[in-house]
Each structure stands twice: as C-alpha cells, then as structure tokens.
C-alpha cells in the first residue's frame, strides 16, 4: 500500500522533472502531423540555427540567474558588438587596411568592451550591493546610446569578410550550421564548468546563500565577475553571429532579446531566485521555444496568437515547476 503510494509519487516526480522534455516531444509530434515539412532535416537545421543565436546568450543568462543575478543589457550588447565589428571593417578598409584584419581587431575590441561592462556590473553590484536589475537597466541605455553613436546611426551592411559571414551563414560539411556548432560547444563548456568545476559550484553557492559562500572562503566577487562577464561575452558572440547571419549591423537590433533569453532559461527550469538551475534544461528551453516559433510560423498562425501561446507556455511551466517543488518537499 505504502510502497505503491511512494512509487506513484516517484513516478509523478519523474514526469514532472522531465515535463519540459515531454512537452517538447508532444509539440514536435503534433507539428509533424499538422505540417509534414516540419520534420525535415533542413527545417530542423534552420530552426536550430536561429535558436542557437539566442541560445548562446541563454547559456550566460542561465549562469547569471543561478548566481541570483540578472542582466537586462544583453540586447544592447548584441547590437553593439555587431556594430563595433562593422565599424572597424568600414573605417579600417577606408583607411586601406585589410578587411580580415579589421574584422579581427573589431572582434577583439567588442570582446574587450563586453568584458569591461561585465566587470563594471560585477564591481558595482559587489561594492554597493545594488540590485543588478537596475544596474543593467541603466547600462542598457548606455550601451544602446553608445552603439548608435559609434555607427553615427547608419546601419552598416556587408562590412564583414567571408569567413566572418560563415559564422552565421556557413555550415559544417555543408549541413550543420556553424551557429549550432558554436552553441553546442559553448553549451558543453558551460555544462562542465557549472557542474564539475569549483568555479561553477561557487556560482551555485553565491546564488543559494551569498553570505554563507563568503564565510566559507569563496571569492564572491570572482564568482560574480565570472557570470557578469560571461553573459556579456555571450551576448557579444551572439551579436557577431547575428550580424553575420543578416550581413548587417544595426544598433537597434535585439531589443527584446533579454526577456526572450530569460524566458528560455526559466522554461528550462532555472529559478529566478538563484541557487538552482540546469544547463541541460536551458538546452531544452532553447529548442522548445525555437520549435514553437518555427511551428507556429509554418502553420501560419497570427503573431498575436503566438504571443498568447508564449505567455501561456511560460506561465504553465512556472506552475508545473512550482507544483513539482511542492511535491518534492
């Protein structure tokens, strides 16, 4: 009697633990039936490619959420990093330099700037203990203004060398898009770092109880710096891939991305309150959102319905996860 009951609970827990995965499979099956073209290799490669761009950021976002922090300025950073690379390309080639060289320098500059801003966020947050929500809301404005000023508010198309464009448009063996490869490699790195290194565990610890972590001799600032810099660098990388994909750089890109990426991480099971989350889950979240967008577009659903569905899925996943946590206790 009792065993049967326990087992039932265990079963329910197991289902709830994998509810995102299950929902994903169900949606895929439904889409397959509704639109046979959905389940083709090329469609999947396409949808994964698009998902990967935001997915790259979502990895950083997962880490920063696990640390109990947040970054709202990733969208501006995406736009800015593309603009920086393009501006280097434009001005340096005008001055007679090689486009490839210019591009590499631009990439270095954009990484540097991303790291600088990440460090700045971490330093301010750590020193004054201001909620990161509001710090990054402020720098979001700054980065946006910076991007516009740098490119003198003209979009800059086609200022990338071929190999850079490959980052967005190229495909390994002509079939797997590079953005997907980049995302998967970063995902692997994130996974190992978060689950199997002391850096990762420090990040979990400061998210779960910062004071306890500090008293245990964990370098809290270092852990914070790692997540704040990582998320900005992820955004910069995504900015390159995005610009390479659309062969254009524009400071107005990616305004809604911070929320989209947070949504992906949350649907994947990361908590907004810090201390718990799963890098694996974010992978699922990224794929789920990409499949949804792709599927609803294939089915030619109205954008408004798409918004409603997205809201409902987010709400639903929140409720399921809360229910699961209750059951577990």
């Amino acid at each position: 009697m009792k065993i049967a009951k326990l087992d039932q609970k265990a079963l329910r827990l197991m289902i709830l633990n994998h509810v995102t995965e299950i929902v994903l499979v169900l949606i895929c099956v439904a889409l397959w039936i509704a639109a046979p073209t959905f389940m083709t290799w090329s469609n999947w490669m396409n949808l994964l490619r698009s998902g990967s761009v935001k997915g790259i950021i979502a990895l950083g976002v997962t880490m920063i959420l696990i640390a109990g922090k947040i970054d709202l300025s990733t969208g501006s950073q995406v736009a800015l990093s593309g603009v920086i690379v393009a501006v280097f390309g434009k001005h340096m080639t005008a001055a007679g330099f090689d486009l490839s060289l210019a591009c590499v320098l631009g990439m270095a500059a954009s990484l540097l700037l991303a790291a600088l801003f990440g460090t700045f966020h971490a330093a301010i947050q750590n020193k004054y203990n201001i909620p990161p929500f509001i710090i990054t809301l402020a720098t979001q404005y700054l980065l946006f203004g910076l991007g516009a000023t740098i490119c003198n508010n003209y979009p800059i198309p086609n200022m990338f060398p071929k190999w850079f464009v490959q980052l967005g448009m190229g495909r390994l063996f002509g079939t797997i898009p590079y953005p997907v490869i980049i995302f998967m490699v970063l995902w692997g790195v994130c996974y190992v770092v978060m689950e199997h290194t002391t850096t990762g565990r420090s990040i979990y610890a400061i998210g779960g109880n910062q004071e306890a972590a500090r008293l245990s001799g964990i370098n809290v600032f270092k852990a914070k710096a790692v997540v704040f810099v990582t998320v900005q660098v992820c955004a910069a990388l995504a900015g390159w891939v995005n610009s390479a994909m659309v062969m254009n750089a524009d400071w107005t890109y990616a305004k809604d991305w911070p929320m989209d990426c947070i949504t992906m991480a949350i649907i994947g099971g990361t908590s907004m309150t810090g201390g718990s989350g799963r890098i694996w889950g974010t992978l699922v979240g990224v794929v789920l959102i990409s499949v949804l967008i792709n599927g609803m577009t294939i089915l030619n659903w109205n954008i408004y319905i798409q918004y409603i569905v997205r809201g409902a899925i987010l709400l639903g996943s929140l409720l399921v996860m809360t229910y699961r946590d209750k059951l577990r206790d």
Partner: protein
Amino acid sequence: AEDTFKVAGIVFKDEFTMKMVQQGYQDAAKDLGVEILIGNSMGDIANEQQLINGYVDMGVKGIAITPYSEEASSPMLREAYDRGVQIAVANIKLKNADFICGGFTSQDRLNGQKLGEFMAPVLEERFGKENPLKIAIIDFDAAIPEQSKARYGGFLDALTAYGFTYDIVAQQSSTSKQDNVPIIEAMLTGAPDCNVFYNTSAAFTAIAVQVVKTMGLDKQICVVGYDMGEQVAGQLLEEGTPLYCTLEQDMYTMGYKAVEQLVKTIRGEETECKPGETVYLAGIIHSVQDLPEVQSWLDRFYALSSK
C-alpha cells in the same frame, strides 16, 4: 516677415529611411537659411507629443514631421497649429488635417499598386495567369498597421486588377529587424510552393533574399521588395539574384520639400502645394531591368551618407 527663424523637424523611428528624411530636412533648412532642430520620437506616440510641445514652447515657427500615425498624430499637431505654428507633413497623408501648410508623401497604397502594376507582366511571363499565384507576405502589422496594410494591400489590388488570382500561402507580422531569418525560413518551409515573396520593408527584403538563396529557392521564388537601402541595392546588383525589384520612396525629397514648404509658407512666398493638401511623390522603382540605374543610386547614397 523676418528672414531667419527656427523650425523643427521630427522623424518617428530609428531607421535608415528616416535618416534620409532627416537629411532632407537639414539640407533644405541650410539651403533656405533657417535654423532647424531635429527630434526622433522613437516609435512612441507619447514621445512625439512631447517633442511637438517642446518645440512649440521653444518658439519655432514651423514643424516638419513624419507623424507616427495618420490618425493619432493629428490632434496634437492641430493643437500646435492653434498656437501659431505651421505644420508640414512628410511620409504619410495625415487624416483630418486641413490645417497643415502642405504634405509630401509617397502613398503606401499607391506604391504598393505601382509595384503590382510593374510586376504583373513579369509575373505573367514567369508563372502564367492560369494558376493562382502563391504569395508569401512579411509585414509589420504589429508595429505600424496602417502603413503595413496599405503596402501589401495596394500590391494585391493591382494584381487582382490585372486579372491574377492568388493564394496567400504564408503571411507573418514581424516585430523586429533581426529576428526575420527564422520567420522567413519557417514561412517558406510551411509554404514550399510559394512563388512570390512580398516584403513590406527593406529590412525584410534583405533577409528574404538571403533566405531564398540559402534554401535554394532562388529559381522558384520571385522576391519583391519595398524601400531602398544599401543592402538591398547590393542584392539587386548580384548575379542571379532572386530579388526582382524594389520601390524607393523618395524620402530625402519628401523631407526636403516639407521643410521648403514650411519655410516658404512662413515667409509668405509662392509654394508648390496648397494649404491642407498633400502631394504624392511617386515612388521610384529600381529593378534588375536597369542595373546601371541601381549602381548610380548606390553612388548617390554613398555621397549622401558620408556627409
């Protein structure tokens, strides 16, 4: 009347076309010897209002504006007019706006029609008239619905008038400039039989051309653009491009003429357009039929943007 005074020029979003209007404003002001203040409402009607009020209070004699909305912007402008400021409009035809000193627009519906009329024979030759055309449309209904709907509505009207039948095999509203790769890919995945891809803005066109090419549909699909831009011009010039044509709204001229109208009205000089009326500037079609013309546009663009 005094010879020199202040006017203001307002654009409404953060985009290349508006940059052209702005350039037009500034050049006209320079040519006519007046000072001009420039504002951008960033796609928010509340900002627009704030700008208008601000300028009025600063004592500008006139405002040239590309309003946010043909309906919503007019009460605020009327208020400004009632306070003694002349209003000239560019880019859209303002409704209920007998107070303006003149307007210059390329009308979206007419432009759409012009594109339709231009493309109809081309499409007839390529696909014949017997079967319905399989049209996919990407629009910005979720941002500025009036404009967006006019742009594709006009195109479809013209096709119907020419005697085509068509199916809309896919239609999506995009809310952003950068997320369109997945949208267009999915549209074409869901509608693999599509043969005409109609874009309502240059940002869409650039992506659509890329996607059509990478999906290997460049022989099957004829891409029609709307608005001109550096990237789109480049795509027209490419070998074997699926992009057939696009329509340039002469934004620079619109901006230029709006300020010119404004200044001349204030100075009491002869003007091109009567008060309360709106002049339509014809859209200019750039197509693969005339590549040197496209090249010369690009050259002009570079000259302008390096100003």
